[in-house]
């Protein structure tokens, strides 16, 4: 009975996303442009063979997947938190019998499931056009890959939410978001961490930035049980930590809600 309300929130937000379709169109074009530019770039760099263990085809697929993850979960949770806290409209959300943090997540899941459908289709189509079918793709491991992507989306969501909720304590927090985006970008989104020196790899493979992008993307383009056994538990731990962090910041922040007038 209690969980029902969160499913209801997911459902209504899928509906909302369907109405809002136009919002996605722009991002679909952007996704295409992004893949195309990197396809051209890597085509120039590669002269046959492999770089850091990735073939050209794997590299293109890698990008299709990291972009799929960020385009799906890169919804505006940071901006929304920021706005709700600063304008004080968060106060009205507190009137209802729900857990605010999970309410936000359910809403985002609704929106994200629509984006996930659109961008998965994009990833598969563009991957097949630009890179051709993935060699040696283990169909049996698909459930693990999906789990890994779900964990990265969850991690990404709750980390961005935590950053957004810092608005309770500081007036200007958008630099956090910028830094976070850049970290995601350089530590796994556009370059697999294998391109970096060994010592950096040893650290990065345990950090959330790489686990969000590199973790699942590498698992899909170059599956190994060893990689899965390393990445999945680390993702699960970070996802749980991110949820707790968001809840902690929220419970601290909510005591400081200041809304005058309005």
């Amino acid at each position, binding site marked *: 009975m209690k969980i029902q309300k969160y499913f209801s929130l997911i459902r*209504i937000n899928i*509906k909302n996303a369907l109405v809002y379709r136009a919002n996605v169109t722009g991002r679909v074009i952007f996704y295409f442009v992004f893949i195309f530019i990197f396809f051209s770039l890597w085509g120039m760099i590669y002269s046959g063979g492999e770089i850091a263990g990735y073939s050209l085809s794997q590299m293109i697929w890698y990008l299709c997947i990291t972009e799929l993850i960020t385009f799906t979960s890169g919804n505006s949770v940071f901006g929304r938190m920021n706005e709700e806290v600063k304008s004080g409209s968060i106060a009205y959300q507190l*009137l209802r019998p*729900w857990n605010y943090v999970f309410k936000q997540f359910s809403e985002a899941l609704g929106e994200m499931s629509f984006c996930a459908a659109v961008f998965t289709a994009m990833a598969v189509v563009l991957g097949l056009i630009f890179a051709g079918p993935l060699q040696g793709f283990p169909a049996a491991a698909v459930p693990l890959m999906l789990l890994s992507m779900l964990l990265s989306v969850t991690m990404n969501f709750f980390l961005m939410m935590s950053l957004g909720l810092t608005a309770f304590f500081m007036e200007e927090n958008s630099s956090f978001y910028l830094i976070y985006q850049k970290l995601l970008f350089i530590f796994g989104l556009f370059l697999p961490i294998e391109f970096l020196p060994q010592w950096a790899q040893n650290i990065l493979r345990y950090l959330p930035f790489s686990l969000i992008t590199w973790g699942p993307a590498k698992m899909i383009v170059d599956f190994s049980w060893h990689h899965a056994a390393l990445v999945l538990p680390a993702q699960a731990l970070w996802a749980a930590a991110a949820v707790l962090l968001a809840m902690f910041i929220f419970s601290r922040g909510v005591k400081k809600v200041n809304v005058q*007038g309005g």
Partner: protein
Amino acid sequence: MPAIELTNLSKTFRVKVRGEGFKHAVASVFKPVYKPVEAVKCVNLSVEQGEMLAFIGPNGAGKSTTIKMLTGILHPTSGSAKVLGLDPVRERRRLSYRIGAVFGQKSQLSFHLPPTDSFRLLCDVYEVDRNTYRERLGRLVELLELGEFLDTPVRKLSLGQRVRCEFAASLLHAPEILFLDEPTIGLDVVVKQQIRELITRLNREENVTVFLTSHDAGDVESLCRRAVVIDRGSVALDIPVKKLKYDYLNKKVVSLKFTQAAQLPEIDGVTVVKSSPYTVKLNIDTRTTPVARVLAALSADNIADITITDPPMEEIIAAIYTNRREDGA
């Protein structure tokens, strides 16, 4: 047990002070200076179950802050609030099942979807079972005449239609207390009337306690028996609406337009607020002078247009303060 009980309730906000000039700007980075602002000061108030209370005061008097403390949104700085025997802050979620709120300036409906979708969602959020929900919604649809636009996206509704839906949304879980913050702002007379009738009915049939803030004298008059006036964070007046009305609401504002330039005869209890050859605006003290007597003094042929209104709540409140200060209170 009273439905709402406030004991020495106070709320102080800390507002950052920004000095002028570069030196202050630099200094405030290292050592911000805060100024306390007392939004609510030691409010004591008790509202019985089934009572309809008007909570009025000028903008910035602390009305919204008080409502937010009663609903558990804001934490009081000191003092305590008890709503339905619960502590709004510590038992916010338990309390939220039993109270409802309508904020005239805030929508709780999904903008792009028809109201039915929002209603369904709220019914799940409040854990109302489907049968009760259908029955309750049916009744609200009938009372508020929502049938026509239940399936129209909210963004296409008129303000009146939307506010009626907001009321339905707040009432689906059968709250025991209804907090209304400027619920009729911007509405036309017909919708206002419809909403007032709904509130009166809920109060009569379900013994719902109503806590209303409004700048609309009509809302206050037609709904509430008791009025609490709050100013600068403190309770200034706690009196029956009848007395408020007798003391302060016995004025009518009459605006007249003439077809030919006219001179108004002097009448007792009438003050001219504004006047030009073709238009005039009057304040009439209805205790001494019925509106009819003023109209009788004018020649009917000469009147092009006439409007009779209640003085706005702000004026009544202003009048209350002027009187209080004159009384040395």
